[in-house]
Structure formats: structure tokens, C-alpha cells
């Protein structure tokens, strides 16, 4: 692990790695999403994050965070919020379009799973945006 990185940066890289490793296969490999798979993914994220963050904490002597870390964190949350707000508008627009046009041949259960997947995807994209924005801010030394 590069020694030039602060504790927060290492932690962010670990988060991004975990998110990509867990969410990537879920969204790109699974053809049929289900509540069980979503629950499994959440458990996988928690377990992987706990292990990686514990390793980073154990191997990092200086674990202080300062005002710049908090500023970068806020920037990350702002980017994440703007992403999820934008995706929500698009998602609700698509829902309205499908409801109006009526070309959505799915029963109620499938409809529920479909929107679970869509809205969960929005959360995932927003989370990855938040983490990536913070990493970029650190790399640009802001």
C-alpha cells in the first residue's frame, strides 16, 4: 500500500474497491435480481468493508483526520446527493412514461423487484460517485 496516502485516502480506496467488487458482478452478471441477492450483497459489503478497514487501521500509525478531510468528505456527499437527486428525477420520469404508455408487461411482484433493483442501482451509483469524488479531490490535493 503506498505510504504517501493518508488514512482517509487508504480507507476510500478500500471502499471503492469493495463497492466495485460487490456491486459490479451484481449488476453486470446477474440476470435475475431478487431480494435475497440484494441482502447477500449488503452482507458482503459489510463483511468486506469491516475486514479491509480493520487491516488499514492496523497498518496505519497516524489515523488523524483534519479540516481538509472534512471538507473533502462534504464535497463527496454533495456530489453523491446531486447524483442521486438527478437519477431519481430520471427514474420517476421513466416510471411516469411507462405508466402513461402502458408498455410494461410485468406482474406486481416483478414490478416490485424491478423498481427495487432500479432504485438500489441509483443508491449504488451515488455511493460510488461520492467515493470517487473524494478520491479525485485528494489526488488533486484540494
Amino acid at each position, binding site marked *: 500500500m503506498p505510504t504517501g496516502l*493518508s488514512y482517509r485516502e487508504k480507507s476510500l480506496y478500500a471502499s471503492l474497491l469493495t463497492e466495485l467488487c460487490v456491486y459490479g458482478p451484481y449488476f453486470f452478471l446477474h440476470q435475475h435480481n431478487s431480494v435475497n441477492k440484494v441482502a447477500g450483497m449488503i452482507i458482503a459489503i459489510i463483511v468486506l468493508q469491516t475486514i479491509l478497514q480493520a487491516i488499514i487501521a492496523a497498518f496505519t500509525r497516524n489515523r488523524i483526520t483534519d479540516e*481538509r478531510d472534512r471538507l473533502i468528505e462534504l464535497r463527496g456527499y454533495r456530489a453523491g446527493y446531486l447524483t442521486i437527486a438527478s437519477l431519481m428525477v430520471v427514474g420517476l420520469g421513466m416510471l411516469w412514461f411507462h405508466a402513461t404508455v402502458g408498455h410494461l408487461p410485468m406482474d406486481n411482484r416483478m414490478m416490485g423487484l424491478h423498481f427495487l433493483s432500479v432504485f438500489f442501482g441509483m443508491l449504488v451509483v451515488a455511493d460510488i460517485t461520492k467515493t470517487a469524488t473524494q478520491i479525485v479531490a485528494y489526488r488533486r490535493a*484540494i
Partner: protein
Amino acid sequence: MPTIRNQIRELRAAREMTQQQLADRIGVTRQTVIAIEQDKYSPSLETAFKVALVLGVPLDQCFQYDPRGKR
């Protein structure tokens, strides 16, 4: 040219102080000291005063405000 410039690198070098030592004394990370020295990050007033105190100089000798500068 940035709005707030500083002479921390020169003042620190004159005192043979490392970035890590300065960071430890003002309670920030070494990466933050690097960002401040490169004029990429303007610290809070509290941190600016701490820097001046640790380096033993008045605040305006550490930091200068340039009203024509751009961030």
C-alpha cells in the same frame, strides 16, 4: 495566481522542520501541509494562526491575501 499565498515552505525550511513535524504540531495530516504549501488549499483561520504560532512569525508573514488572485 491564488487568492491566498503563503511562505510556509521557506519558513519551515529555515527552521529545518519537516512537513510531518509541522503537521504534528498543528494537528493536521502531512498531506494537508503539502496542499497548503502548494497553494491548493486555504486553511481555516484557526489552522493559519497555529501555523504562524509554531513557525514563530506574525500571521501576515505566513499568509498573504491577493485581491486580484483567482482560485
